[in-house]
């Protein structure tokens, strides 16, 4: 069992898995110490199009007791180049990421896809990646927290993005985090593990097939009756959200980080058109 408590504004995490163990020894370390030097890798897409998500990660991690750094030298992980067949053009981007984030104990990425690129593809480009974590991995595996103290009174359905699911293997970590959110009504998404059809440049190169996949995904999302669709990747959310918005479907795409950052004191608000 895991538990945490807020003590003088700082979060303390108990690392013993058996707080009531007969030995009676309880070791407690502050989150800051547990996570070490934490950097945020916002990713180019989130940085440019979805700054709210990156702000939410900072708010969330700071609330949990981490101090977060944002190295300004960061740009893009190079996944689009690599996956489209432009290996040589991906390499300098990979080297930039490796040098910008060198020396950190944890690099938190609000994207399963970009985290997967860094962790699993960089070695193939002869770039040694640092300790990179997708957000839910960082929360559940490193901080060992499932209840982040969030409040989100909405009906939500969760789409497990392909790379977080199959490349990183985050499993049910995002769901465990969502289940602990106060006020949140979690509805299971039918055929959740089917790809939404984004696939990076696939969405352009095979736009028709991509749209056919998107149509089925949207139909499943609408079946849930949810008013918020969440995922751990803004790229997939941009795709599904773009389709839902085109249909005026009235379902908001919201990144997992924004749900977890939302509290009763500072709740998430529907983004206004003037964002």
């Amino acid at each position, binding site marked *: 069992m895991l538990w945490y408590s807020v003590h003088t504004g700082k979060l303390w995490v108990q690392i013993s898995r058996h707080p009531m163990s007969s030995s009676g020894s309880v070791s407690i370390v502050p989150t800051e110490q547990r996570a070490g030097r934490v950097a945020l890798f*916002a990713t*180019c897409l989130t*940085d*440019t*199009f*979805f*700054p709210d998500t990156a*702000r939410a990660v900072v708010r969330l991690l700071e609330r949990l007791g981490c101090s977060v750094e944002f190295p*300004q*030298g*960061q*740009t*893009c992980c*190079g996944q*689009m*180049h*690599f*996956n*489209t*067949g*432009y*290996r040589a*053009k*991906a390499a*300098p*981007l990979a080297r*930039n990421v490796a040098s910008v984030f060198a020396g950190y104990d944890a690099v938190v990425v609000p994207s399963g896809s970009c985290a997967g690129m860094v962790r699993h593809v960089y070695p193939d480009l002869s770039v040694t990646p640092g300790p990179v974590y997708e957000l839910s991995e960082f929360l559940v595996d490193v901080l060992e927290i499932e209840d982040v103290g969030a409040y989100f009174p909405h009906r939500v359905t969760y789409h497990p993005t*392909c*790379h977080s*699911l*199959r*490349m990183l293997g985050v499993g049910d970590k995002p769901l465990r985090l969502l289940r602990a959110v106060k006020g949140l009504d979690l509805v299971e998404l039918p055929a959740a*593990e*089917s*790809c939404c059809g*984004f*696939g*990076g*440049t*696939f*969405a*352009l*190169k*095979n*736009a*028709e*097939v*991509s*749209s056919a*996949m*998107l149509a089925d995904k949207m139909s499943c999302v609408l079946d849930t009756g949810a008013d918020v669709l969440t995922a751990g990747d803004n790229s997939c959310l*941009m*795709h599904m*959200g*773009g*389709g839902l918005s*085109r249909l005026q479907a009235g379902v908001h795409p919201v990144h997992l980080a924004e749900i977890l950052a939302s509290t009763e004191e500072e709740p998430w608000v529907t*983004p206004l*058109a*003037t964002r």
Partner: protein
Amino acid sequence: MGDTTRNPVTWLGSPAFPTAAKTALADDQLRRNLKHATGLIRTKRAGAVAELADWEQLRLSGEAIKDDVLANLDTYLLRFEESVTARGGTVHWAKDAAEANEIVLRLAREAGADEVVKIKSMATMEIGLNDALQAGGVTPIETDLAELIVQLGNDRPSHILVPAIHRNRTEIRDIFKATMPGTEDLTNEPVELAAAARAFLRRKFLSAKVAVSGANFGVAETGSVVVVESEGNGRMCLTLPETLITVMGIEKLVPTWQDLEVFLQLLPRSSTAERMNPYTSVWTGVTPGDGPRNFHLVLLDNGRTDTLASTVGRQALRCIRCSACLNVCPVYERTGGQAYGSVYPGPIGAILAPQLGGDMHDKHAASLPFASSLCGACFEVCPVRIDIPSVLVHLRAKAVEAKPRYSPEAIGMAAMSWVMAGPRRFHVAQRLAVAGRLLSRGGKIRKLPFPGSKWTNSRDLPAPAKESFSAWWKRTRG
């Protein structure tokens, strides 16, 4: 046909995948047939696999055995040839489709056959054997029910295991009525359809002098050949005719009988979701008084040794043709197999066909590795753990290499890489991108010119934020 230098692994004149896919997507009947069939078999496979606690171990074993075979292929092939010859079989080596077709046609003629019965086989499909036989005056009869439906319908296969998956039973009834004598009153009931095919094929089995098969496995230590099928029609072909000609890809070997055990577990559960395969036929050379009196084995290369030369791409040769990757693929589910323009469709086809064909300057072949969203569902189910997404990306790089160096895409990619490689340039680009808001209403861009229209035809695009996160950080915390 006529062009003997061309590898028939892809169909001549096939349009690039996106074009073919567009046509397939518009075929409502096809979409319904595929959704139903792939959905059904997907669920069944998941159930069959979940029964085995050691499934992952089996996959690892399958991968390791095949990797050993590929790494020592020369040794195993010579051992296999020796064993087959010692047991009275004759081994022929074919470097490509043309050579293999020539050998089979010559052997069929020597046996005095003007008709041959065929067991379902991907290798003979890959080399276009039916066309070659027909051109040489020998009529091939497909005896696998689905393959027969494709042949009678003058159609092309759309699936490795279920080549007529794109047809429903009413369409099949119509094909039978048009091509089989005495089927005027046929209904679309599966039992009746099967009975009609059975009556048609029985006559062929009894009269054929020559059978042609492929092979699922060859056991190097004993020279045994294995064919795995569900209907029993294959066994009829393997036992009744006097002469048996088997065309086998050189990668189909396993070292020993013990290794075969792994694959006889992996294959049926992955392909048909069966615990055990219904008809597993094994033969070793010729046996006097039992089965065919002449056995010819044609060992086919057709691009395999070239594929073996690629450290990333060679894992495609582990494939045991189970089709699990087709059934889970979200792209295949929506386009069907014919859109891939090859006998090998779906994710495995997208990595196998371009490699066997060996020509990335061919626009159709070069389009295949891009026919995937890289969702990874194929890798997850592959019984021999072929990392299909990685091979797809590897082949995409080959396709890009084969393209003109200064294509608009290449220039765009190079420019973006240059911008992204320097944070200052990136931040300038972000500020410039804010101008994109002029195209937006309510924070959404609804229409862009080509190639952006590829996105905006079916989805909105969010406008870049007024202030990027990095700019916000610099302003508030920098």
